[in-house]
């Protein structure tokens, strides 16, 4: 606000700076800080183990699946929605792609199957929300229950081991010394960033989330777009499922438990508005990394579950309070 009354040009530039300073970036800086502090603690407590290549790749591979889900979640939330069904969709995809029937057709079909199932579920969410006018929370809650149930039904609650030769060979391999899973994660994230910040689709997502009526009056087909956003989230879940199956060399109806909470938490901590209209992909990435690093540091220092939980809560609040402070300096909104 301060800069406004200066001369036009000055106001323009300073306010731009002000925005740059007050909105996204300063928050991201704050997040980065939190992450670095975490790393510092990790290194201080376990200098031998923390910064080893092995440990870093462990952290990243742990982050991969939830990270991909969070990318999709960022779109849904930016569009003013919410998706509680991601975990269940991961489970269902992982189960469906690992049934004997599917496996018998080989890796390609398994992947295809996962993508179809995941995107399909997402689309159903989208149609319910956009055309059925069901509140996102409820629509995806229903999907959360149904998809999990279907997964249990299909798998008979058995963990289905992957025997299809080559699946592990493909997804647990290294590429230029970096595990494939991490590559996928990075690629999905990069694609998500571009899609959100550099394409019409991204702008419209933010418009729909920020003011659906305005978007409609501007001639955007809000419903169609909403449906697409949820389908996209489902697609991300499918990719996550593929990763989880690679990690666990098996598909089970218990996969993806609590992913919804972890993903939403990462996205919101990353600075995406739960009310929609503003989304930060980089923030999401940092959010995911913060949470995974946290549990890694805990493990390295063999904390007990209860202590872990208490600490986790405290740290989340701290992380956000830091942001709140920085934001306060910025816009009054």
């Amino acid at each position: 606000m301060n800069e406004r009354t200066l001369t036009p040009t000055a106001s323009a530039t300073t306010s731009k700076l002000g925005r740059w300073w007050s909105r996204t970036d300063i928050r991201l800086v704050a997040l980065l800080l939190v992450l670095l502090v975490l790393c510092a603690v990790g290194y201080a407590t376990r200098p031998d183990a923390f910064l080893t290549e092995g440990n870093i790749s462990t952290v990243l591979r742990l982050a991969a699946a939830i990270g991909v889900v969070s990318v999709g979640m960022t779109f849904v939330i930016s569009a003013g929605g919410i998706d509680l069904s991601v975990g269940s969709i991961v489970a269902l995809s992982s189960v469906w792609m690992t049934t004997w029937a599917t496996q018998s057709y080989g890796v390609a079909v398994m992947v295809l199957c996962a993508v179809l199932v995941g995107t399909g579920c997402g689309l159903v969410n989208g149609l319910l929300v956009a055309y059925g006018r069901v509140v996102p929370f409820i629509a995806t809650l229903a999907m959360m229950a149904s998809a999990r149930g279907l997964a249990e039904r299909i798998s008979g609650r058995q963990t289905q081991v992957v025997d299809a030769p080559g699946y592990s060979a493909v997804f647990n391999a290294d590429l230029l010394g970096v595990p494939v899973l991490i590559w996928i994660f990075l690629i999905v994230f990069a694609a998500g960033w571009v899609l959100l910040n550099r394409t019409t689709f991204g702008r419209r997502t933010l418009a729909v989330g920020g003011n659906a009526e305005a978007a409609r009056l501007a001639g955007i087909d809000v419903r169609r777009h909403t449906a697409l956003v949820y389908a996209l989230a489902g697609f991300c879940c499918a990719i996550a499922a593929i990763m989880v199956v690679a990690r666990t060399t098996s598909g089970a109806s218990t996969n993806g438990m609590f992913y919804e909470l972890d993903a939403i938490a990462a996205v919101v901590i990353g600075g995406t508005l739960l009310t929609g209209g503003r989304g930060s992909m980089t923030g999401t990435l940092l959010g995911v990394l913060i949470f995974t690093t946290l549990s890694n540091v805990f493990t390295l220092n063999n904390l007990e579950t209860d202590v872990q939980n208490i600490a986790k809560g405290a740290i989340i609040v701290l992380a956000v309070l830091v942001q709140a402070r920085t934001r306060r300096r910025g816009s009054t909104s």
Partner: protein
Amino acid sequence: VANDPPQERSAAPVAAGGDNAEPGKHVRIGFSAPAADHGWLAAMTTNARAQAEKLPDVTFRPTEGSTDVNRQIAQVETLINEKVDVLVVLPADGKALTGVAREAMRAGIPVVNVDRVFDSPEAYRLWIGGDNYGMGVNAADYIAEQLRGRNVDDPVIAEVAGTDSLPLTQERSAGFREGLAKHGLRVSRRVAAEFTAETGEQEMTNLLQAASRLDAVWNHDDDQGIGVLAAVEAAGRDEFFLVGGAGSRQVMDRIKAGDSVVRATVLYSPSMCSSAISLARLLGQGRGMSDLAEHEVPRSVTTYSAVVTGENVDRYLDIGFAS
């Protein structure tokens, strides 16, 4: 907050063993178990710690805190990165953790697989665990015998299972079903709780509503048993008798007192985790089990699911865990 029950806590059991008690080569034992979100799992972890403390030549390296297999995989990887001498793994899901366990074996770290079994033999050096199927069968046999004693014709038998998505629950149910079948009996009602007192109470309350008359009930797990009993008492029903599972201290006391519908409990004792640690130590030191002729620790150990009843309860009180 000080929080000690008036009656003394059951001391964590320690395996005894001939000359193996003598300290040997120092061993770092890595331990990974799912988040101890209910009594039995908690007891497993506590027993492991306690056992390790009793052993002067062992450093214990526990990791905790996850129901998500991916997290546990990451934890085991961390332990491998740290190059512990022996790994003791109680997997959240045996099949899902087979991969990492195999890695560990390949990395030359012997793996002791506790309870939920890995998918491939090359993923572990030693498996020690309970007999879920046998547990169901023993429960069935006991119930059949009791009913025969009371000679009720076509009795109503109900089952309160644990978390349905776990294989162990399915094995127990299978054992129970087939066990009863041997005696020409069947399970007429089945509900599944989630190993917590609250869900136990909810499911049992509903069950009691659904079945106006019951003759026998098997409850898979004594943690949820607290809730199950609460429900029974709330409903003021006592026309049936109840058999527990796992063997918690509370339930054993109830059996001893004989003042409730609980007649027996089928063991599935967390003491197996104590044994797992001491066996892990032997593996690390390359010793065998001194009471056996074998020079090596065996490939697999299956604990016995004894049925604890009013007659023999005193013999088992020491391994009754605080749920």
